[in-house]
């Protein structure tokens, strides 16, 4: 299906739980808003299941596709936090932390939810840079020799008391 929709804004309403998108339909040139009620959503509902439901809903799928999985996870988590009694401020702070990649944070130690969210953020960036078979500049075997270009140390080896290094 040729998609003429462009996502402008996304957000949620709490009463009742609803996902709201603002978009422009380039076919008609009109700005529109789409509200998608999140039925049977309570604090015990798995977010993956809600996403599955939205994606398989023939009326909503076209609009859900406009969001990245990372965005969708974030919005639904905010709704779920609210249903669990967390304040909006606390929820946004928690979600911001989950959506930020800190180069010094050990992801082997975080809870599965946080790891999943951080992987989604990384995946979004991965997909943007990805070269796939069929892309005009795709090559299966890409070899680049960086050895001769080395000019400075990473700094990741200094400040080191670690004997293993």
């Amino acid at each position, binding site marked *: 299906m040729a998609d003429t929709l462009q996502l402008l804004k996304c957000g949620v309403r709490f009463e009742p739980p609803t996902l709201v998108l603002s978009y422009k339909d380039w076919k008609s040139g009109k700005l529109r808003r789409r509200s998608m009620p999140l039925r049977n959503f309570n604090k015990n509902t798995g977010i993956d299941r809600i996403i599955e439901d939205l994606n398989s809903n023939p009326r909503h799928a076209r609009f859900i596709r406009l969001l990245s999985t990372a965005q969708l996870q974030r919005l639904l988590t905010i709704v779920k936090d609210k249903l669990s009694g967390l304040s909006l401020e606390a929820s946004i702070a928690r979600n911001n932390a989950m959506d930020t990649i800190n180069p010094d944070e050990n992801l082997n130690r975080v809870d599965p939810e946080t790891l999943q969210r951080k992987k989604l953020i990384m995946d979004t960036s991965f997909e943007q840079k990805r070269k796939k078979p*069929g892309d005009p500049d795709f090559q299966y075997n890409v070899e680049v020799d960086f050895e001769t270009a080395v000019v400075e140390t990473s700094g990741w080896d200094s400040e080191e008391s670690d004997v293993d290094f």
Partner: protein
Amino acid sequence: MAANTQPDYDKPGDEGEERIKIICLGDSAVGKSKLVERFLMDGYKPQQLSTFALTLFTHTTEIEGKKVTVDFWDTAGQERFNSMHPSYYHQAQACILVFDCTRKITYKNLPEWLKDLRTYRPEIPCLCAANKIDEDMSMTQKTFAFAKKHSMPFYFVSAADGTNVVKLFRDSIRAALAYKHNSTDFMDEIMKELENFELDPKYNSKLNQDGTQRNGKDSPDDDEDADKEKKDEKTDAADTGQS
């Protein structure tokens, strides 16, 4: 092969071919699975060995005219427990140790992974890869002392754009074979092989051939997608013109 048993990598496979086992190690989210997937390309369905909490990618290739079956073992999130089940290391003939060059902590954790590896496999060749160079190309201008200190071959790679992924995996297969064939000083051997790999045009052209075949086999589905995207773009452009 039953879903929950390990093959015996010391014995030949069903058709008498060599079998080797190569394990991937490194922190959560450094891109280990994405690297294996990039080497094997799309449409490849790995096998889940649930008992061992790992993912197994089987790859068949030809090295110097001989058929070799390679199992790449991937952690399937087991690294979250900070060390792997001993069965993960059992019979492994080479290791690919990965860090994320945009996240310093993943580099700082390399000694832990190496220590774990050496507890079970004191001598197998280990190759070190700095992944995600596409995120920050300036990292390729920098030196990382860890690999050199432990005499490991070092690769700047990108699972996203493919840089040096095939080279990394091809080298790991050759290193595993060199180890399996009981080289007395296998590290010298690997380093020598790596030099040959650079210099031998015959080998390189063979590699390219492999690559072309692989593309041919995998591309139909993707071409379809790409065509569709192009069509979408055109439609979008036309609509924009109207509005």
